[in-house]
């Protein structure tokens, strides 16, 4: 089985997010970048699925600064990697690059994280699927494959559903789909020599443009209620905030 895993290079989950004084750009100085946590679940699943044979290719849309993250994916167990040499402008741009790559190199399964923890949200997996006219199961909690059919459990409004879909398909990985894998020394050593090819992006029309960023207004200082007065909480909230 040939699997493609789409990976994003995102600020560490503990990173404080700051912008330039004009709020136009994210300040990456001093920020550690990591493999997007959901993508790491997707990659771990791909490695599990190919334990008995097959290959896992990772694809990233980014400039050369994302290569440490790509090497980490190779250390976790991907066979080879492709970097599309461009800044990931928006979800549509990223999806187009991935879909173009898949059209030239067929895959049985395309795995993504269900969302990326930077500014691109969760639009890429379903866009890739639509561009390829195949299904996308975006909130997959489990995935098993028998022959050319996949069975998936997906989170839905107020519950879950079990789906069956033919390969190829796109699945978005949620927590629970696989255990996170920690790269071992052999993986780290071999990652240095695994193939990482760099390709140039295809042209994509630009439909969205980030104008500026903003941060949530910090809350005014906390109002403390003594533990013995806890019973007054709901009346206080109704009186002062009118949300209940």
């Amino acid at each position: 089985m040939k699997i493609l895993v789409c990976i994003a290079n995102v600020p560490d989950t503990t990173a404080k997010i700051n912008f330039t004084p004009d709020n136009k750009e994210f300040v990456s100085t001093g920020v550690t970048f990591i493999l997007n946590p959901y993508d790491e679940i997707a990659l771990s699943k791909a490695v599990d699925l190919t334990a008995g044979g097959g290959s896992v290719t990772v694809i990233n849309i980014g400039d050369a600064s994302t290569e440490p993250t790509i090497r980490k994916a190779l250390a976790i167990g991907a066979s080879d990697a492709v970097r599309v040499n461009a800044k990931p402008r928006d979800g549509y741009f990223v999806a187009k690059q991935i879909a173009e790559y898949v059209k030239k190199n067929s895959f049985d399964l395309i795995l993504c994280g269900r969302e990326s923890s930077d500014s691109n949200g969760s639009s890429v997996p379903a866009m890739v699927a639509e561009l390829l006219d195949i299904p996308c199961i975006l909130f997959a909690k489990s995935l098993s494959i028998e022959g050319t059919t996949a069975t998936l459990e997906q989170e839905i409004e107020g519950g879950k559903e079990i789906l069956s879909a033919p390969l190829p398909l796109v699945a978005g990985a949620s927590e629970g789909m696989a255990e996170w894998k920690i790269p071992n020394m052999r993986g780290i050593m071999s990652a240095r020599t695994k193939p990482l090819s760099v390709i140039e992006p295809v042209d994509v029309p630009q439909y969205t443009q980030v104008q500026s960023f903003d941060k949530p207004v910090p809350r005014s200082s906390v109002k403390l209620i003594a533990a013995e007065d806890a019973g007054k909480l709901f009346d206080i909230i109704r009186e002062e905030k009118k949300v209940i």
Partner: protein
Amino acid sequence: MSVLVFIENVQGKFKKSTFEVISFAAAIAQKQNLPLVALSIGNVSDDELAKAGKYGAGKVLKASGAQLDSMNVQPYATVIAQAAKAENAKIVVMSASFSGKGIAPRVAIKLDAGLADNVIDLPKMDGGFIVKKGAFSGKAFAFVDITSDVKVISMIPNSYKVVESAASPAISTFDAQLSPRDLVVTIKDVKRSTDKVSLPDAELVVSAGRGMKGPENWGMIEELANVLGAATACSKPVSDAGWRPHSEHVGQTGIAISPNLYIAIGISGAIQHLAGVSSSKVIVVVNKDPEAPFFKAADYGIVGDAFEVVPKLIEAAKAFKAGQN
């Protein structure tokens, strides 16, 4: 030209988040001076459809049929795109629910439209079409200009008010053409917990962390949530330890929520957790450690042991609810 809003049902009923998204789309349509068309897909009674008509739509379309009985992303996206073309919709609006997040990107591709997902406020429409959306997992917002002719936006539940209007629009049938490619996914089984409030669109959320010491102590959390009519949630260490299901995990790598009231019990408030809950309107933190970082991000704080404070909250919630009725 028009604005089209997809009105999602769950088992034939519309939820409050549907009325929010219609109200939101109606405000956009009014500003753009365009009529609003609401599109329902699936098996919904005319009585229920009439309810959806009260929030500003000039016309309600219903698409139904055996192939559309259950929510299924591909056929639903096809129906929405066809209705958008038939109504010459310039703006297509839907909820950023689980279903909407799967559907909106496909509709955008089908319509060659720009997409903004996770929108949390009315777009600025004086020259340009600038939406405010969540970014960096709730740690920031991005203002995004959608420059394409046709635009698709999905709105985060609980981020717009429900506005009723007097209209009672006509309901008409919309016939969509599905292709076999739309119907390759089979839904084998659906399990819904009908007695529980769903987390992403809950107005009130009671959440607990490692301070609860073990899964056996969740009874009081569930009781408090039950009395309040709230959804239950948890922190990442709790779901990682298997005390609670992953579907309850709120935070940067879990679900992002924006309820009216978020009560966090025994959660210290790591930055990843705050990212997922910072758009809650009011945050209450109960923690026995006065130095817990969460107090800095809270509106109300109770320094105390959860096992003493929560029973008091349950009694208070019962009295509060009794007072409301």
